[in-house]
């Protein structure tokens, strides 16, 4: 138990972003000579790692004089970044509109509405790429919007350099493999860079989802999207994870370690265990970006055909 003497009152919820717990996963480690640790990002105020990014992007814009109270924020998101921005917007006096694929889980939509955010649906079949496209169009059409734009905002990887990565580097004497989910690339780029400074032989590994056919309805590969902040050459491994493997990872994490992670956390655990198996000895650190709460309404928990139950929705 934490020493009660170290507990201090925070002056704002925003002061509680980051400094998340790092826990060893002794029951999941494939061999005693390989130690596996998880960074529990669900412990952030809105329950995901995106609190770090939202706070950093808004603070950077305020510091640069680009934002004044009352301004309207606009952001493309599959959910978590929107929810984190909704928290920051509420406390700092901005309104928020999120452009989100129409097929995200209901929890995300409801939570955003409860925070007072507006939601603009982007076409379900275009996945998150469609949300990016539509938000860029809306921002172009209406200059009164301020778009933090997590995919191209350097404050995103910087938050992980200064926060996520630095926290892990300060907690451990050795890290051989760092695993995180690939969405914007912010965690992998920022925390990866910081950890490589402390551990030069580090392997930075991305866990990447295989989207269902129903959310890959792009007309051509030209509609693919690589976030400007993502430099793929800085990754050492980039591994695909099916929805079924992700859910198996979520269940394993819950059964063995009693950690209730979200879908991307399941994918990250899948890759973490694969890479831990490849090591003779060493330390693997993974980032569990959110908890499972925002996915409870989904059909896959009781489905015999997980892939089918998940193919029509955007999960990351």
């Amino acid at each position, binding site marked *: 138990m934490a020493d009660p003497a170290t507990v201090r009152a925070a002056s704002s919820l925003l002061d509680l972003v980051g400094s998340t717990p790092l826990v060893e996963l002794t029951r999941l480690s494939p061999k005693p000579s390989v130690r596996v640790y998880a960074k529990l990002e669900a412990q952030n105020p809105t329950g995901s790692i995106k609190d770090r990014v939202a706070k950093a992007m808004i603070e950077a814009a305020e510091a640069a004089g680009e934002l004044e109270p009352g301004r309207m924020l606009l952001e493309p998101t599959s959910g978590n970044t929107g929810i984190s921005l909704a928290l920051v917007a509420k406390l700092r006096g901005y309104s928020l509109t999120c452009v989100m694929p129409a097929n995200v889980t209901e929890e995300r939509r409801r939570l955003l509405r409860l925070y007072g955010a507006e939601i603009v649906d982007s076409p379900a079949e275009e996945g998150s790429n469609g949300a990016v496209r539509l938000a860029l169009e809306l921002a172009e059409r209406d200059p009164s919007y301020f778009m933090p734009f997590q995919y191209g905002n350097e404050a995103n990887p910087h938050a992980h350099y200064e926060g996520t990565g630095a926290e892990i580097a300060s907690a451990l004497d050795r890290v051989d493999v760092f695993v995180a989910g690939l*969405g*914007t690339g912010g965690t992998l780029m920022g925390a990866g860079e910081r950890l490589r400074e402390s551990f030069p032989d580090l392997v930075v590994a991305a866990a990447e989802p295989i989207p269902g056919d129903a959310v890959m309805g792009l007309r*051509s590969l030209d509609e693919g999207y690589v976030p400007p902040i993502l430099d793929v050459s800085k990754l050492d491994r980039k591994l695909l994870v099916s929805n079924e493997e992700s859910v198996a990872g979520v269940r394993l994490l819950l059964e063995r370690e009693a950690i209730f992670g979200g879908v991307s956390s399941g994918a990250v655990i899948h890759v973490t265990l694969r890479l831990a198996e490849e090591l003779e000895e060493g330390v693997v650190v993974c980032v569990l970006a959110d908890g499972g709460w925002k996915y409870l309404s989904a059909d896959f928990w009781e489905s015999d055909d997980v892939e089918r139950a998940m193919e029509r929705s955007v999960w990351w």
Partner: protein
Amino acid sequence: MARVRIPPTLRNEVGGARELEAHGATVGEVIDDLVERHPALRAQLFQNGGLGSFVNVYLGGEDVRMRDGLETPVDEGATIILLPAMAGG
């Protein structure tokens, strides 16, 4: 021979198939074999003589850019997955 999974975005170019078989000792040779039989794929997959930045090619579940790119050796019966680059967050 390798199996190549075709994403919905490219199925028009291959007559609607979700998966095709193709021959080659490397990822590049397998894709060349596919493109020879389905020439419409070329413009989608390649830019400036290399793989387009918006297409990801996976062998054994790993992005071939992390291995030897188009030179990555392909074992008999391997599965190659083609996907458009998709964002998240």
